[in-house]
């Protein structure tokens, strides 16, 4: 296996505020085939100039369409992209620990959150991902791959939406596809009201939350007209706060446009970075 050219990866834990999680309500390469804004944003979160990104399609059962979409999205970008299958028996003798330890970004796909966590635990991968986060690797994901980082998520793994405990790296609860699967929201709100789930976030497709440590740093979106909803139960009342995300790739004063230009600009930036070898600030 090749050693990463930059050799900057740290084995030591970083300060809590340098630990990054990017949780998407939906979107990215599995859901937005012609819109790379969220995925480019994911790459920009890594501290490495040319990050190593590992896709974990576990929650879908490692489906070929997800893996192919990942390759299609990231193969032409400034990164080293690989996926990790926990089902397909590839000829690998590298341990999961070795594979995870060399990554800058771990990107978790959507699917069944119940299966995702159970399978990770069966392989001991949950603990490896927590270690990766603690040493400064970016944990990213959508849907099940976003909810898994929180204390609680709302899964449809057995059909109807129901609460499920996550890994608990982030406080509170998360529900996803707030616009795409509207049947989730009333179930989530009912559980917040009766106290079975802590307050948290409902994210539309395309919306992502950036956490540094446990502090929400940015709310971004790949789609205009989307929002993040924060809900807390205070003295039995649900208190709602709507947050307008920053639209990725938009130019000031032009919130609906500028998408193609943004892609071109990102490509130019990538080319430039590759050319000069300059590190991101």
């Amino acid at each position, binding site marked *: 296996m090749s050693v990463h050219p930059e050799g900057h990866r740290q084995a030591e834990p970083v300060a809590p505020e340098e630990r990054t999680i990017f949780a998407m309500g939906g979107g990215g390469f599995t859901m937005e085939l012609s819109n790379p804004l969220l995925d480019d944003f994911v790459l920009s979160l890594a501290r490495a100039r040319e990050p190593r990104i590992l896709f974990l399609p*576990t*929650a*879908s*059962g*490692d*489906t070929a369409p997800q893996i192919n979409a990942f390759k299609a999205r990231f193969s032409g970008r400034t990164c080293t992209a690989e996926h990790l299958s*926990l*089902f*397909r*028996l590839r000829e*690998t*003798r*590298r*341990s*999961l620990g070795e*594979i995870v330890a060399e990554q800058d970004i771990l990107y978790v796909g959507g*699917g*069944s959150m*119940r*299966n995702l*966590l*159970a*399978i*990770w*635990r*069966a*392989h001991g991968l949950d603990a490896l991902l927590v270690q990766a986060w603690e040493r400064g690797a970016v944990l990213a994901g959508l849907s099940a791959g976003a909810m898994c980082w929180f204390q609680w998520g709302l899964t*449809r*793994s*057995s*059909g109807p939406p129901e609460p499920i405990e996550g890994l608990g790296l982030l406080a509170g609860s998360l529900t996803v596809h707030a616009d795409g699967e509207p049947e989730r929201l009333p179930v989530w709100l009912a559980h917040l009201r009766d106290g079975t789930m802590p307050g948290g976030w409902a994210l539309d497709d395309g919306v992502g939350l950036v956490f540094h440590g446990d502090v929400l740093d940015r709310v971004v979106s790949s789609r205009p007209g989307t929002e993040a909803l924060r809900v807390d139960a205070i003295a039995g009342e649900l208190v709602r706060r709507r947050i307008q995300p920053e639209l990725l790739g938009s130019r000031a004063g032009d919130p609906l446009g500028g998408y193609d230009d943004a892609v071109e600009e990102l490509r130019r930036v990538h080319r430039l970075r590759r050319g000069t070898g300059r590190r991101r600030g």
Partner: protein
Amino acid sequence: MASRVPQIVALGGGGFSMEREGSLLDDYILSLLGAARPRVCFLPTASGDADHYVVRFYRRFSPGCEASHVSLFRRDQGTGGVEDDLAAHLLSQDLIYVGGGNMVSMLGAWRAHGLDSILRRAWRRGVVMCGPSAGSLCWFEQALSAFHGAPRPVRGLGLLPYSNCVHYDAEPARREEYHRAVADGMSPGFAVEDGVGLHFRGTRLERVVSSRADGRAFFVQRRGAGVREAPLEAEPLGAGELPAAVRPLRRRAASRAAA
């Protein structure tokens, strides 16, 4: 349905997923069921519920059986096969066919959906269990897993108090690895080549059958500082001569060394 003996047919590899249509091993398993149109449920969990695997199952079994499958990954999309009461469905089957893939992932997902205890109950009630590869390993106390890193013993459901090693002929290092694991304290158990099936009644090995003339299986146990590998007598399943009665395998070891 009354007082059926628990039965498992553990395949080292083979069956509809690996052999040509009309696998003799699948025919042998069906011959155990004693039902004109048996109820057969497929669990493709170890493959991540791969679509192509599910399709091949239906192609093979829907002509003569009441075929169904349970997907643990597509239950939110209405394409999970059986949707409602998994326990009632699985307990009413004649045969549960577990597909190959990754055993550790499969057992993790099974436990998350309570399938491990349902399958244990189904086995005790006499629902025949079978499968190749991961679908064999899972019934044993321990299995040799060669996935991500050095091969190591992993725990199965433990219905059969032995260890198991599959695809024994497929990889040159497999035999040595299994011997080392047993010498290091893994339970004694069965090493099985592709195309060979171990038929257990209760926890007792009843027969060894093979869809190939030269298919082999072995019982491996610790002996001194090393291991003893005893060949088992495998009966080739010839076309047209399916076993009418189950003939107990009495001479387990030795007679035909390396067929």
